[in-house]
């Protein structure tokens, strides 16, 4: 069994310490594979990672087509929760799965910080 590098753990800690966050992951944007994770039980990590990466690819193309540059942050709100994602320059997605009433501004701030840590 391998352990995630210390900076990955630190990046995930930044996100999961926010009240209402049920889990955080670092996902390879190209592969849709989990690089590191801290998830509560019941969250299907590999499925979220694969589908979030697929969505990120399509969003990136849409942003490029619209001529508005690269995506910096996206937030999908659902009835029973939310998915918040920050793509990093190095090709990693910092993903948070959160409760519906989470403080989105705070999660966004911590995702961006985590993105800086991961690089």
């Amino acid at each position, binding site marked *: 069994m391998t352990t995630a590098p210390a900076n990955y753990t630190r990046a995930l800690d930044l996100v999961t310490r926010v009240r209402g966050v049920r889990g955080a992951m670092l*996902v*390879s944007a*190209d*592969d*849709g*594979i989990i690089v590191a994770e801290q998830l509560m039980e019941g969250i299907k990590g*590999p*499925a979220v*990672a*694969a*589908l979030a*990466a*697929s969505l990120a*690819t399509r969003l990136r193309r849409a942003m490029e087509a619209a001529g508005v540059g690269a995506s910096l942050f996206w937030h999908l709100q659902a009835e029973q929760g939310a998915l918040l994602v920050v793509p990093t320059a190095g090709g990693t997605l910092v993903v948070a799965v959160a409760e519906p009433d989470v403080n989105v501004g705070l999660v966004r701030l911590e995702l961006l910080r985590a993105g800086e840590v991961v690089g």
Partner: protein
Amino acid sequence: MTTRAVENWTLEPLVKFVKEASARLVLVMTSAGQVLAQHGFSRAVDVMSAAALGAAIVASTDEIARQMGQPPFAALNHQGERHGIFLAAVATGRGRLVALVVYDLEVSSLGLVQLFFEQLAADLQAASPKDSVPKQVLAADFERELSASLNTLFGR
């Protein structure tokens, strides 16, 4: 792109998998390389080559695992510049089957293929004939069987 099956129970799971994983080419075959279903191939010669190579790769990795004292590897992925190749085995009532998946990196990913392959494996297990004895293809019948399969796979 068409999806065709020699054994009809494989068709629905394969169609679903291709749609969800956005796979470009798929072969479902026995571990001996006998093709049960295919998606996306337009030439019989390509199916024959891919099936033979896929079955050989699985046999080679099985042997490596055996020599290492390990159970067979669950899956193998090769990522190229534009395409990825995913090869994995699944136990069914029809025996051990092998799926060879070629995916375009622009429209799919290893994560998606892995995710929906789990569903394909479950669907194939559920749909497979439960008490069938795998049909032996004798050398004498091999060419006739192969021609019949290819005719079905390419709608001839």
